[in-house]
């Protein structure tokens, strides 16, 4: 069987096609052998994938001899050829001609305004939204690693990084990346992909418990080849669900099935996640998606503008890219507003007009929050008691959250150092100054703490 190692499937088919081409006319060759490939080779049986029933009939009945001879010449062990229909190949075959393509662009241009029935886009078997593809994901230094890992997982599910854990803030493209893996993996092979948010998963577990259908649910999930769970941080505090998930995880993992998870923070920062889960989540590849840098933000804007078939002054795009740094969804929101303005007034906005329109969005006053909310949110985030934050307690687990809370009070509420000290159990203002400086330094060097503070701020704003 040494021969089979010399040729890859693609090389073997290319070589065979070269031989077959000599025996039939060019027109026939193009018509009948376009979009064919070798699906598998196993124990002397070659399975050839063809785009439709017509090709299958023709190859089976008319060209079988040529194909068989050509393959046999290359690999002598071959004794049988089967043909299967791969509908995906047909889709490529009937790829829309130019005219339809422009129509599609117009259609996408309308999308933002003509609202759609969102659920229709979702594949009922996999829960994947087919709009999320790798092609439309813009790669920059902030998401390079996550993107590369995702691509690699999509190519070789279950083999390279398992589990793949992707984390990052709101609106930075986690879900896009996760769904793109699923869509890509499904495109090539008939893999059973299942995408689920952890909330949905919890809901399913609860329903299964109520209806005594747990086994059904388990069997259902155990059949998947790629399981994608989004926003895993919401499993926090759901013990029964965590337990079920733990068993499911193990079953799939042992069978080399790919597991992909996402969260707003790394596994070690998810408080009250059972240790055994945390260690499993950390067992594969962990990649983060950070805030996009200026170039990436601008690239995203330009792509969106092109997709909308829309002309806009580059300076305006630069203005948006500079103004919004932390959320891609907001960047898109700004653009939609500009497009709406243009449609309404039938002219391209000048820079001044654009800036005026955008300022309405960008400078919307942030939600106002007070000291109580900060303390509560910080305590919640680190899963400690609020009173411990205030109390005279120097345990390590408490000190850091306390410093973070002080830092936020100083930075976001501009409270004075003595005031902060007073609120935190009458501490000296120098303690507060020290805390703020410490966190300030940490943010520069420690990615984790930067992420954590980002999430806390997000929560405060929501």
């Amino acid at each position: 069987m040494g021969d089979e190692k010399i040729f890859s499937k693609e090389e073997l088919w290319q070589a065979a096609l070269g031989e077959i081409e000599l025996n039939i006319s060019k027109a026939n060759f193009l018509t009948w052998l376009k979009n064919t490939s070798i699906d598998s080779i196993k124990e002397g049986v070659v399975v050839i994938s063809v785009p439709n029933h017509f090709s299958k009939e023709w190859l089976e009945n008319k060209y079988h001899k040529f194909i068989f001879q050509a393959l046999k010449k290359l690999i002598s062990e071959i004794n049988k050829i089967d043909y299967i229909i791969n509908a995906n190949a047909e889709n490529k075959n009937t790829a829309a001609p130019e005219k339809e393509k422009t129509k599609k662009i117009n259609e996408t241009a309308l999308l933002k305004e003509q609202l759609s029935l969102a659920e229709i886009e979702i594949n009922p078997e996999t829960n994947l939204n087919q709009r999320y593809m790798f092609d439309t994901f813009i790669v920059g230094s902030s998401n390079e690693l996550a993107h590369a890992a995702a691509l690699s997982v999509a190519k070789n599910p279950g083999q390279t990084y398992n589990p793949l854990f992707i984390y990052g803030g709101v609106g930075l493209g986690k879900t896009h990346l996760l769904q793109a893996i699923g869509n890509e993996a499904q495109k090539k092979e008939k893999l059973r992909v299942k995408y689920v948010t952890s909330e949905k998963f919890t809901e399913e577990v609860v329903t299964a418990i109520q209806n005594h259908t747990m086994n059904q649910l388990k069997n259902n999930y155990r059949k998947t080849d790629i399981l994608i769970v989004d926003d895993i941080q919401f499993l926090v505090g759901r013990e029964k669900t965590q337990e079920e998930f733990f068993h499911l995880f193990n079953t799939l993992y042992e069978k080399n099935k790919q597991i992909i998870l996402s969260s707003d923070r790394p596994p070690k920062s998810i408080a009250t996640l059972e240790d055994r889960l945390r260690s499993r989540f950390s067992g594969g590849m962990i990649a983060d998606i950070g805030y996009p840098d200026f170039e990436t933000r601008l690239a995203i804007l330009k792509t969106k503008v092109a997709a909308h078939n829309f002309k806009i002054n580059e300076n305006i795009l630069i203005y948006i890219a500079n103004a919004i740094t932390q959320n891609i969804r907001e960047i898109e929101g700004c653009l939609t507003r500009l497009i709406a303005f243009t449609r309404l007034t039938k002219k391209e906005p000048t820079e001044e007009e654009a800036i005026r329109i955008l300022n309405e969005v960008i400078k919307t006053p942030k939600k106002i929050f007070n000291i109580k909310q900060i303390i509560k949110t910080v305590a919640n985030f680190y899963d400690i008691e609020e009173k411990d934050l205030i109390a005279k307690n120097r345990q390590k687990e408490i000190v850091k959250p306390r410093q973070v809370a002080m830092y936020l009070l100083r930075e976001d509420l501009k409270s004075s150092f003595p005031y902060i000290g007073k609120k935190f159990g009458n501490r000296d203002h120098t303690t507060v100054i020290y805390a703020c400086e410490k966190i300030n330094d940490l943010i520069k060097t420690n990615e984790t703490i930067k992420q954590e503070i980002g999430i806390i701020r997000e929560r405060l704003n929501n």
Partner: protein
Amino acid sequence: MEIICLRENLLKAINQTEKIIGKNFSLPILNNLYFKTEKGRLKITATNLEIAISSWVPGKINEEGETTIPAKIISGIISGLSDDKINLRFKDNLLIVKTDNYQAQINTINPKEFPLIPKIKSENKIKINQKILKKHLSRVIKVVSESTINSVLSGILVDNKKKEIKFVATDSFRLAVSIEKKENENEEISFIIPFRTALEIIRLSSDKDFDVEINIGENQAVFIFEQSEIISRLIEGKFPDYEKIIPNNFETKIFLDKNDFLKNIKLVGLFSARLGEIKINPLNDKENLEIKAEENNLGTNKSVISAQIQGKTEEVVFNYRYLLDGLDNLEENKIIFSLNGNSGPSYLNSLNKADYFYLLMPIRNQ
């Protein structure tokens, strides 16, 4: 091969088949019609390698045989002739078309080169009256998605249950469901017919009471009519769970007269802008519905029609063409137009007849 047949029958069969021939430059035989004598009739077949249509012509067969000839030529000849009887004879690679005062010799291509039409290993057989099939497919076909992103949406779902058959199409902006409530003896089965195939089925269906037999095999099906049949792939995959999307509650319900509504939408739509926007505005008196549109270069217009309004009176924007696509298919004149504000789906149906409904998303109101 030699056959004598009536011009009218031959022309009908040629017209039924040649329509699917596309422009195929690489394989010339795909521009040809395949002629073959079969069980006392002449069978004519055309294919574009996605769909194959065959049609049978009754006639007197003097000699069996088969050949292929360019569709354009034979179609031109037969429609141009005025004689009733036509004699077709195949000899020495030529097809001789002969009437009392006309004769043509057409070069043929070897029938062995003609694509083999896939055979259906039938797993399921169902029968649907062709009038019913035509009616329901026509009612939803406009809504089939043109986008290639999601291939299941590029066809019509036929959902056959014991007590009813549903025909469903959606392009994600709207969803049309047409229902035939009638007990049937078919197996419960659902399948997705590609857009082009549905179009051909509508074209081949006549208004005669005749049951079309549909044999469904693995990802393909044959639709058998009285004198013709269509062989086509079916769309693989699962159609969206459309029933889930249909809202149970609506913020606004408008009871109105269909013809009145239709007429005024067409009228007001004259002034709609690029997206076909018209504004549907239930007035606070709850007795009148205002329809208005504006286009910067043209101007504005509005129309008020009487209606019975329940619930919230909020203005909602729609693409008027999309609205018409749904309204056109309601058979009764008394209809309900239900709204869910300017970001939820609206719903069109007859007041007393549950045979058709149409779900439509609004345009974002700016």
